[in-house]
């Protein structure tokens, strides 16, 4: 899409969907029996497939016309995730048992982690919007699924720290705020230039694929059995690539 005042607003609205979804991700916690690690892992597995398929679509979009830019961007994206993982410790609240204590540092760590993930995720929405509205909407919806998993895990940790539901919801939204902000920035930067768009698509795809492979899938395999993970990931990945066929 071209950038005009109305398309920028549209990007902002679409990119706000996953962030707002993170704000209601505490809802499953209201069930009397709570949410098990396996259920969160299942949500992560489903989201992983969507993000993997989405990464494939973003990569394939411009690789024929600007292979150098796309591949260069993908290296940047993967390097970003790699560095971000070094910057904050690898600790996920769903991998802790109920009896483990959570201190403020752990909570800050988890929020920081979500926020760092949200940066390339926002870029992904923005560049996808710059390509086509449908692609952008799709990426935003895939990330909304991912935010449900991430938000539920974060909200569970915050609740155990004694925060109210409202406070937990606000914290979840806060940690996903980089998504709409970077979506708009990425859209403004990439919608006018083919080279920058190819670079941006590479960055987004590289970061998403690297994130799925180095963080999300290993958690899924640890917390759930491989049959369930394989079924969910194959199902959601296939769905994405098929969707591309429907849209074409």
């Amino acid at each position, binding site marked *: 899409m071209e950038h005009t005042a109305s398309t920028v607003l549209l990007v902002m609205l679409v990119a706000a969907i996953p962030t707002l979804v993170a704000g209601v991700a505490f809802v499953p916690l209201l069930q009397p029996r709570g949410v098990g690690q396996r259920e969160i892992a299942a949500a992560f597995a489903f989201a992983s497939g969507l993000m993997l398929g989405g990464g494939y679509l973003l*990569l394939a979009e411009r690789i*024929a016309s600007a292979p150098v830019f796309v*591949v260069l961007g993908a290296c940047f994206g993967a390097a970003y995730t790699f560095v971000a993982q070094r910057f904050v410790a690898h600790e996920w609240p769903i991998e802790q048992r109920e009896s483990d204590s959570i201190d403020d540092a752990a909570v800050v760590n988890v929020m920081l982690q979500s926020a760092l993930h949200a940066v390339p995720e926002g870029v992904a929405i923005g560049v996808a919007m710059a390509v086509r509205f449908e692609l952008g909407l799709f990426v935003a919806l895939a990330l909304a699924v991912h935010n449900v998993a991430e938000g539920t895990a974060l909200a569970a940790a915050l609740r155990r720290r004694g925060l109210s539901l409202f406070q937990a919801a606000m914290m979840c939204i806060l940690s996903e705020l980089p998504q709409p902000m970077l979506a708009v920035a990425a859209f403004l930067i990439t919608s006018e230039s083919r080279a920058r768009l190819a670079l941006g698509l590479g960055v987004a795809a590289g970061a998403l694929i690297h994130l799925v*492979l180095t963080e999300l899938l290993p958690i899924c*395999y640890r917390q759930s059995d491989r*049959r369930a993970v394989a079924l969910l990931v194959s199902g959601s990945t296939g769905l994405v690539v*098929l969707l591309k*066929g429907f849209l074409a």
Partner: protein
Amino acid sequence: MLSQILIVLALGSVTALATGLGALPFIFISNVREQTVARLNAVAGGLMLGASFQLILEGSSYGPWQTIVGAAVGVAVILFGEQWLEARPPRSARLSRQMLLLVSVMTLHSFSEGIAVGVAFGGGEKLAGMITAAIAVHNIPEGLAISAVMRPKGASVLTCAAWSIFSSLPQPLMAVPAFLFVDTVRPLLPYGLGFAAGAMVFMVFFELMPEAYAKTSAESVGLLVSVTLASMILLQQFL
């Protein structure tokens, strides 16, 4: 007509033989540690994912719903095939359960590719050379995927090459009837492509990835899968 059939058969055989080239790098890889196996699993996973995405895209251009049905059947076949194989320990130690499953998956998926070749030939003759080249080049990483799993488990380079070629034999065999009965076969193509993709993707996330994560770091799995996946996408764009 007969000469045309012979051409389809000959070109189909060339694509099958190309699969054997995937075993060649393993002449130079002699000491195979557990970590190397895990890394090769990741490489095979990336190659198979890239191939499957392409198959799904192609299938959905013929018929998205038929592709979904085919993919669901593909996943189910692997799921039940796995359970069936688990219940029966293999009699010979030379072919492990995983090797058997991988070779079966790759062989089954060649049937659909053979049909694709035949249908494409039937569609427009001028494209024949290009299609053959495309399929042949894309078979090499598939042979690589098979060898990457078989070689560390003690199979010789020759055995790897032989099984790689075997897995592509359905291509020439299916290409000829598909070419002859192109109008009858064409509607079946999206089912076949979907089936192949479903079976391969499921195999990747059910067998290859868990083993890769178990024996090497998530970082190296991530790096290897992303790089191979990206190379597959590049390869597909330029063929």
